[in-house]
């Protein structure tokens, strides 16, 4: 067969698509996606704060059970950047250590939700039929409840603790992923390359793992990053209501709850932990938005 040069296929709109999920050079990516860059930077900062907490916090022992009755409710100063709380603990150190708690809860909740929700969704989307019916109905039941209320209900019947917070939120979180993945999986299952595999006699197990899963996972990646903020807010709400972390744990939600009685006069008790919650949620939202833009296979590039 003689070698005939092939022409580059470009130019028509469909052709100039970004290939799915291919990561290019990082600097180029950052230039094109400022959202992603900012979000990623913020998340990195939070991660570093959490990891380096013992080094950053000025009074690490205040994140634990230390109390200082002589320096209660002091305003922000050079010794206590964020002031002290009602039992004299340094708010700054507690906020810094709090960076270990909220993100950890989020990671655990999301990991559990993904491990439950994604396989169920893929099974429902791929097999269809009664498997889909059963899974979808169960999912629908859970989705009928507002997540926060459901989490509250679970938390209320269990002893308040971080572990139970994780469990309560996970129970309400997984159905969303099932629904998202189910749609993707169903769509992928209909595509010729999956039909081809089926028609060739490739076993289901392999089709699911090698073809359906990798092609359905992208929306989940985006959703997970967007959800980190949501989980943190939900966990904070539970702590705020007394159903989550307990004193002396430096959980931000708990700190806001404890500080609200003093809000009008000692504003720093509520403001700094509250700002931490807010900034963390924003950071992960930006990251999620940025990731979605990058991973969307329908994105049209102007250069190749």
């Amino acid at each position, binding site marked *: 067969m003689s070698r*005939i040069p*092939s022409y580059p296929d470009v130019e028509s709109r469909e052709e100039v698509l970004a290939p*799915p999920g291919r990561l290019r050079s990082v600097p180029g990516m950052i230039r094109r996606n400022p959202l992603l860059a900012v979000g990623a930077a913020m998340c990195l900062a939070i991660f570093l704060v959490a990891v380096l907490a013992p080094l950053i916090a000025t009074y690490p022992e205040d994140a634990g059970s230390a109390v200082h009755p002589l320096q209660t409710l002091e305003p922000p100063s050079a010794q206590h950047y964020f002031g002290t709380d009602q039992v004299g603990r340094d708010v700054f150190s507690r906020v810094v250590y709090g960076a270990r708690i909220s993100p950890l809860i989020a990671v655990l909740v999301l990991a559990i939700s993904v491990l439950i929700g994604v396989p169920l969704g893929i099974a429902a989307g791929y097999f269809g039929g009664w498997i889909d019916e059963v899974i979808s109905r169960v999912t629908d039941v859970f989705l009928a409840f507002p997540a926060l209320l459901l989490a509250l209900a679970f938390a209320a019947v269990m002893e308040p603790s971080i572990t139970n917070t994780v469990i309560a939120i996970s129970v309400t979180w997984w159905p969303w992923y099932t629904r998202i993945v189910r749609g993707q999986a169903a769509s992928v299952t209909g595509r010729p*390359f999956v039909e*081809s595999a089926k028609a*060739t*006699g490739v*076993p289901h197990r392999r089709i699911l793992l090698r073809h359906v899963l990798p*092609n359905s996972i992208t929306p989940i990646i985006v959703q997970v990053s967007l959800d980190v903020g949501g989980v943190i807010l939900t966990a904070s709400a539970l702590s705020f209501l007394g159903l989550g972390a307990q004193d002396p744990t430096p959980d931000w939600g708990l700190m806001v709850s404890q500080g609200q009685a003093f809000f009008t006069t000692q504003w720093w008790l509520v403001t700094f932990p509250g700002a931490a919650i807010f900034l963390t949620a924003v950071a992960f939202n930006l990251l999620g938005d940025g990731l979605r833009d990058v991973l969307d296979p329908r994105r049209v590039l102007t250069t190749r």
Partner: protein
Amino acid sequence: MSAVVAFEAPLLEVEDLVVEFGPVRAVDGVSFRLPAGPYGLALVGESGSGKTTIARALMRLVPAASGAIRLDGRDVAGVASGRALRSYRRDVQIVFQDPTTALDPRARIGPTIAEPLRAHRIVPREDVDSRIASLLAEVGLEPDMAGRYPHQLSGGQRQRVAIARALSVEPRVLVLDEPTSALDVTVQARILELIAELRRERGLAYVLISHNLAVVEQLCEETAVLYLGRIVEHGPTEQILARPAHPYTLALRSAVPEIDLAARRSRIVLPGTVPDPANPPPACPFHPRCPYAIDRCRTEVPELRAIDGRTVACHRAEEILAGEAQPPPHPASSSSRDDRDG
């Protein structure tokens, strides 16, 4: 001395295949035979003809409501699983129309080609790579393609990969569903050459589904023309294209644009559109649009009968072949008038 007629069982035989989607009969009693290769059988038709559904039924991707699909005499139409199905799945492979969606965008070419190989354990694990390389070479691709992703290949190259994948299990029957429709003209020509070459070298037997009569002529000895789920004309390709006996084949043939001015012919423009398969016309499915329809066409179903070396389902086939068919003075079908939409 009594004459003994040697009957050679066909490789693939489809008998009275019916495929239904709920109330809609997409395939309405189709029969054909594919002998051992090298041989090409074309299924020609337009939207609603059922040709794609037949391909999917052959691949056992959709169930048959009734009828038989026999490979080497063994019927798989009713088989849902098990060894018989697995072995059939190895022997019959498909190449889809759109190479872009026929390949997993997240898998490299090598594993894509090797997947059927692995699924059927054709070769021992250590030989898989060399088999991939030889398959790539056979379809005219460089061995280093194995490490690439589909988006890094052109349309023609992707189609070659799809062909390589289909051939990896040494199938006995290949189903080609519009293998070149999604490709540029020069690329098309090369893929057709490739198929012709593979046919020679491997003695392939294939069912080619196409709406392009020129492609069909190039690759297939036998052609079946489909309309609304039924075969309306069936026979040697040359005969059918040169002297169509069915009005639809005639219209189809005349509608094909010719680049060669000398070959220009007058166009038969068919009124109306293909009817909804959920609501097929009575008796002859083509009669509402047929320029030659007479009363009989509305009341009596034309059966496939043998005329002049092929089979046709038309009451007026003899007249059409003789070139003597005239449109009736008062058209039998009034149904096309009120809904004069194109």
